[in-house]
């Protein structure tokens, strides 16, 4: 689907208005920056490599945490989805641990891991574990029962039923859970960096704030937004390609 470029009209107009307004009123501020200044700061950061370094650090920690926590959540979710007894036994633990706000674990993580990627990965992993666990479990439980009957009628043993029917049927929803978790991983990673970890984009953001450079601050916010959007768009494109036929109603739109 080609994006409707007319949608850019309003943001572009707002930019122009902001630029004009700030120039005309001779605004000098520690908290605001003109759009042109923001663009300039971003360009500068790109040129001198600082934004790439920070992005690399954030992405590394976020994706590693996602792989660890999300991966564990996926495996456990598959098990809980397939085994009713395991699901019943685990419900209490899941419901007690899940609501713990992940950012509240930052101090604990810092005690255990100290500064650096480790503590960030730990917090991201904890945060990504839950959506993958719960959504994978739901995806497995919600496999079309008629398909399971077909598998029974054809005489497939339980393992074949899982590999040929349950897993392929649950995969589209599991992928959507993965897309969600990628977004979460990025947000939590940057948050940990803002709060405690002296590396990555969040830390660069704090630096910009403390050195009273609003142009760089907005530039970094914009950059983080672009990164998130890029990741999301890339994953959505993958989803459309891989699961075009598996999702009900075709591509399922922008879910």
């Amino acid at each position, binding site marked *: 689907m080609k994006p409707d470029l007319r949608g850019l009209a309003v943001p572009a107009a707002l930019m122009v208005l902001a630029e004009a307004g700030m120039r005309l009123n001779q605004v000098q501020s520690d908290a605001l920056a003109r759009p042109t200044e923001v663009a300039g700061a971003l360009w500068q950061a790109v040129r001198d490599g600082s934004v790439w370094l920070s992005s690399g650090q954030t992405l590394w920690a976020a994706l590693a945490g996602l792989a660890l926590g999300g991966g564990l959540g996926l495996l456990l979710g598959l098990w809980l989805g397939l085994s009713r007894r395991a699901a019943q036994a685990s419900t209490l633990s899941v419901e007690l641990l899940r609501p713990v706000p992940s950012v509240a674990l930052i101090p604990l993580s810092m005690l255990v891991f100290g500064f650096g990627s480790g503590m960030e990965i730990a917090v991201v992993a904890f945060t990504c574990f839950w959506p993958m666990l719960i959504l994978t479990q739901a995806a497995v439980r919600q496999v079309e029962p008629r*398909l399971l009957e077909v598998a029974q009628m*054809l*005489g497939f043993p339980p393992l*074949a039923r899982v590999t040929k029917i349950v897993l392929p*049927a649950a995969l589209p929803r599991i992928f959507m859970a993965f897309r969600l978790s990628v977004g979460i991983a990025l947000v939590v990673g940057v948050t940990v960096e803002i709060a405690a970890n002296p590396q990555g984009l969040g830390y660069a953001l704090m630096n910009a704030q403390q050195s009273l450079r609003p142009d760089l601050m907005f530039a970094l916010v914009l950059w983080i937004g672009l990164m998130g959007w890029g990741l999301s768009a890339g994953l959505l494109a993958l989803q459309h390609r891989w699961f075009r*036929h*598996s999702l009900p109603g075709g591509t399922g739109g922008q879910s």
Partner: protein
Amino acid sequence: MTAALARDTGQRLALVQEAPDTPLIVFDNVALDFGARRVINRLSFTMRRGEFVCVIGPSGCGKTTLLRLLTGLVRPTAGEVRRNGQPVTGPAQDVAIVFQDYAKALLPWRTVAGNVSLALEAAKVPKAERAGRIRALLDKVGLAAHADKYPGQLSGGMQQRLQIARCLAQEPAVLLMDEPFGALDAMTRQTLQDEMLQLVEAAGTSVLFITHDLEEAIYLGDTVLALRPSPAEQSSLAQTFAVHLDRPRNQLTTREASEFLRLRRAAFDYIKETH
């Protein structure tokens, strides 16, 4: 055909063929409860090899349940369901079922060929053989040109044909069909009725066909079983109609035959009685 060993007077073993008209399927005084509700009561009938039996009745009379009793996915509360003389305990390789909701019974992530392949994989057919058999089956149901399409890209009639192809891949002795054409338009329904009759006749398959359409039941079947809902103390089987119409059936001439019209009238009377 099953064979039975028998000793003659000289104490020698001799192979004796069982009588050729031993029923393939026997429902022996079958009852089924869902919780406190008795859905099927005192149901007894037999099905011969190669016979085409249609089951009609209003919603909730247990037509689908009857089918499921034959699959072994449901066990009777009382009585016995026997196939080839043995009680039915679970799904068998040579019993295939065609569901009404064909979209839900097909694998959306596999192509048309892949869906048919599923049955061959279950039967552990060697990989090298599969392609040829899939092609032959798709030819039979007229989907050869669509082998690489996905179920989501097919029309309703084509999806149902695909399901039938997959069932035929099991080379079933018994084909169970649960209102398979109910969700299709009238023209597709007629086409598929005739195609299906050809296929089962060529293979000698026994068919149990559920439908709510009286005329379809008479057109297709050798025997029509009419069930009654909420049987209470009576038998679930309200009436049995034997259909003595020529084969092969023809959409125009068979439906105008006097026997067809007589059966149709009798079936209508039964419907009035049970509604």
